[in-house]
């Protein structure tokens, strides 16, 4: 007995997607990308479940896995942020080779094993699912596997409690008040005033565009260090200065002035530009 | 078969003693010593009771006790003694009190600096000695191979601590150098014997497999196995029997020790205090030779006969080699150790000569070697502790300042060179005759050793005791009362065993007879049986 052609087509297409997703999970540099490709793979798997008559699992796969668990992953990714761990450079000697060897060997063995397993005929789930897939599962869960089910309950509770215990931090002393914090900041000689806002002289004041100092260089303080670490800063001061120079040129051509006036005018321009920048900032 | 578990009690008493001694509070160490001594004496009494209740020539294993233990593996808690075991239990129980008396102050060195409040080296020392005694006794008593194996191995643990923890401080080196050598010796002792034990374990399992195959139910019980073989239910295949035999023999040869597995003994005996050294060579090592006689020969008769030539040669090498090296030693205790190696060679030679003289001689030799070495080495220990050195060259003219010490030492020495009239002569001559009747050449070669023995013993005596008084000897004290109490009875015993060994041979002979019948051997008959003709007339 064989499956429908439709399923075959679906399989061959989605299988490729699943594998690509899996490879992506392993090989993407950034955790977020890995997470997304994993999510992709999981959705594909969900489809496969549905295709194989595991309707309940298919749905659960999407809701629980792709929904809840992957979101949890993403939370943690955000929480942890960017780390040196993301680099793909190998640090343990010979690890790559060993991994490759074991991985290949294992995979080959598995596939060989499957190959010479006699699985040519298969009994579909028609009979099993006759009373509905969910009911079938339910019957089994609450009869044969009820004890295991109860245990999973206990397991989940334990896991929840465990997670809380692990992540919970006991506050040893009273939280510092605003006042104390500010005093401490002054004592340490740290930045007392709030950080300067980004985007001065910018075409728009987005968080990823640093503010400029009067001499036109970008200020480190105006952008989030995480963005900087991720290399997600758009540094636009260069083009902006070019625009200024061009504007001056045009004004010179436009109203001929004496040399001395031009100097004054030039100075005035500088001042104006400074004011303008302030204005633009607000 | 009496209802009262005499054998168990005999083994348990010293064990309890060990616990009690260890429990004595740190401040009361003298009390601990006396307590330990009391327990060892109680054990001696019990050993006497065993000897009294045992009827020589009666059933092969008497006073037996048998309880299922690990039923799934056919392991039983089975005790029972034959004549040889009785004698050796007696020897152990007899020597331990002397060892304790001799080592009365051995642990005091460690008392000086007490790292913490309940620092109790003295209690530990005596408790360990009692523990060794308990284990040795039960090893002699057990007739279940597995039970025997357990204690055969377990006795390494207390011995390890006795060697490594309470070594003597008379070495020629600095304090920490000594500590290094002590631990080296202790570890060497442990590793050698563990190796032997593990190989034996494999053999033990092999035995179980074989019995399980052939009898349907695996068993370790010596009587059951013998019975099954007698009934013809058990036929080990030749190869299996040989391999298992080798596994057993290797362990026993290490323990015994047989050349070339002997090198742990000189280190161990050199670094341990004299009493502990006596415990090693006179008590613990006897388990090895005893086990050869009980397990190797009785369980694997054919394999024993198969291996006999090699073993005889090895033992012969041990005899001559040990004696020659003893001549070459500069350290008194190492000399004793090599002498012991030579003597163990004699014991093994006697066992595998497969004649009643040889084996009775070997069994008797175990006793005599125990007593004589104890007498010799304990006195040597007194000597060493006085001078604070083990090097022969540090002594000289002791006889002038401490005649009693010299005298007792001389008697011990004469016993070691097996002078007629002292115990060892009888056994050594029996071994030689027993060997000669079957293997004349080996017998003759072995006899050369009596000259070598005279050489190393007398050279040692001459260098240490005679001649002008050396520096550091002048103020040497003669034996104290405690030390006389150690040396005197041992010497008396040596003389008794030398003049009237009959009481002991009465126990030994029947057992030997059974063993010989196990290996299907009979004494070679003389060409002309003069005695028979005389009686015929």
């Amino acid at each position, binding site marked *: 007995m064989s499956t429908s052609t439709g399923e075959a087509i679906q399989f061959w297409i989605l299988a490729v997607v*699943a*594998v690509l997703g*899996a490879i992506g*999970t*392993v090989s993407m540099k950034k955790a977020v990308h*890995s*997470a997304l490709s*994993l999510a992709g793979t*999981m959705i594909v*798997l969900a489809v*496969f*479940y549905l295709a*194989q*008559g*595991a309707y*309940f*699992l298919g749905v659960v*796969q999407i809701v*629980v896995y792709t929904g809840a*668990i992957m979101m*949890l*992953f993403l939370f*943690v990714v955000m*929480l*942890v942020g960017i*780390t*040196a*761990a993301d680099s*793909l450079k*190998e*640090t343990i000697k010979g*690890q790559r080779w*060993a*991994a*490759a060897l*074991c*991985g290949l060997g294992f*995979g080959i063995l*598995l*596939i060989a094993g*499957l190959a010479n397993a006699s*699985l*040519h005929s*298969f009994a579909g*789930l028609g009979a*099993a*699912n006759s009373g509905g*897939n969910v009911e079938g599962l339910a019957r*089994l*869960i609450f009869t*044969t596997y009820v004890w295991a089910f109860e245990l*999973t309950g206990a397991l*989940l509770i334990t*896991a929840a409690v*465990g*997670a*809380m215990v*692990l*992540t919970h*931090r006991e506050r040893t002393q009273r939280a510092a008040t605003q006042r104390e914090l500010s005093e401490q900041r002054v004592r340490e000689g740290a930045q007392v005033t709030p950080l300067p806002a980004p985007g001065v002289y910018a075409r728009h004041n987005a968080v990823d565009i640093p503010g400029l100092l009067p001499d036109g260089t970008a200020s480190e303080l105006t952008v989030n260090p995480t963005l900087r670490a991720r290399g997600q800063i758009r540094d636009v001061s260069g083009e902006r200065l070019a625009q200024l120079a061009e504007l001056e040129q045009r004004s010179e051509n436009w109203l001929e002035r004496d040399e001395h006036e031009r100097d004054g005018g030039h100075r005035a321009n500088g001042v104006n530009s400074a004011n303008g920048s302030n204005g633009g900032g607000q | 078969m009496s209802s009262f578990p005499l054998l168990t009690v005999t083994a348990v008493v010293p064990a309890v003693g060990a616990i009690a001694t260890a429990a004595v509070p740190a401040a009361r160490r003298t009390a601990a010593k006396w307590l330990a001594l009391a327990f060892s004496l109680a054990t001696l009494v019990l050993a006497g009771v065993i000897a009294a209740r045992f009827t020589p020539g009666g059933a092969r294993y008497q006073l037996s006790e048998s309880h299922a233990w690990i039923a799934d593996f056919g392991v039983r808690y089975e005790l029972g003694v034959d004549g040889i075991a009785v004698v050796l239990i007696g020897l152990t129980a007899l020597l331990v009190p002397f060892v304790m008396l001799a080592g009365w102050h051995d642990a005091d060195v460690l008392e000086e600096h007490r790292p913490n409040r309940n620092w109790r080296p003295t209690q530990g020392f005596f408790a360990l000695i009692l523990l060794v005694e308990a284990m040795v006794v039960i090893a002699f008593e057990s007739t279940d191979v597995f039970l025997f194996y357990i204690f055969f191995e377990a006795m390494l643990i207390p011995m390890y601590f006795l060697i490594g923890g309470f070594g003597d401080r008379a070495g020629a080196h600095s304090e920490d150098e000594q500590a290094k050598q002590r631990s080296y010796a202790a570890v060497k002792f442990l590793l050698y014997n563990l190796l032997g034990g593990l190989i034996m374990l494999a053999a033990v399992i092999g035995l179980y497999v074989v019995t399980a195959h052939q009898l349907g139910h695996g068993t370790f019980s010596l009587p059951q196995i013998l019975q099954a073989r007698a009934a013809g239910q058990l036929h080990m295949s030749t190869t299996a029997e040989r391999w298992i035999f080798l596994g057993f023999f290797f362990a026993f040869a290490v323990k015994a020790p047989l050349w070339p597995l002997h090198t742990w003994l000189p280190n161990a005996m050199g670094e341990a205090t004299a009493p502990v050294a006596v415990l090693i060579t006179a008590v613990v090592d006897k388990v090895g030779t005893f086990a050869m006689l009980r397990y190797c020969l009785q369980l694997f008769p054919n394999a024993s006969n198969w291996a006999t030539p090699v073993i005889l040669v090895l033992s012969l090498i041990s005899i001559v080699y040990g004696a020659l090296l003893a001549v070459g030693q500069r350290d008194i205790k190492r000399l004793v150790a090599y002498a012991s190696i030579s003597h163990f060679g004699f014991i093994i030679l006697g066992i595998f000569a497969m004649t009643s003289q040889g084996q009775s001689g070997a069994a008797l030799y175990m006793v005599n070697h125990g007593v004589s070495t104890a007498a010799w080495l304990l006195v040597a220990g007194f000597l060493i502790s006085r001078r604070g050195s083990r090097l022969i060259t540090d002594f000289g003219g002791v006889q002038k300042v401490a005649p009693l010490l010299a005298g007792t030492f001389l008697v011990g020495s004469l016993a070691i060179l097996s002078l007629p009239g002292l115990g060892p002569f009888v056994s050594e001559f029996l071994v030689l005759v027993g060997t000669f009747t079957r293997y004349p050449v080996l017998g003759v070669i072995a006899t050369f050793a009596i000259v070598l023995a005279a050489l190393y013993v007398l050279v040692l005596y001459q260098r240490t005791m005679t001649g002008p008084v050396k520096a550091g000897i002048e103020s040497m004290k003669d034996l104290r009362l405690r030390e006389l109490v150690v040396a005197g009875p041992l010497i008396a015993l040596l003389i008794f065993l030398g003049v009237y060994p009959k009481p002991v041979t009465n126990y030994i002979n029947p057992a030997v007879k059974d063993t010989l019948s196990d290996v299907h051997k009979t004494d070679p008959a003389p060409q002309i049986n003069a005695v028979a003709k005389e009686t015929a007339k």
Partner: protein
Amino acid sequence: MNPVNYLYLAALLFTIGGAGVMIRRNAIIVFMCVELMLNACNLAFVTFARLHGNLDGQIFAFFTMVVAAAEVVVGLAIIVTFFRSRHSASVDDASLMKL
């Protein structure tokens, strides 16, 4: 087509996941790879269920999911605490051994 292909796929995914566990240093990604392996197993279970025509395989997959959920919760919590204490999410930094 024979459902066995699903099994081949599962084997492939499992192997890839395993490789990821061995290669990646970022604890989170390693963890994801573990999830991938679990999913591969699930796929296999479901397929077997279909092959044998009973639902026990699916039950198993179901339990796997539950366990996976629990495991993820605890695992991520561990990662977070680890990150707090070490300011790193690298599994290699967990090694305190001197070589």
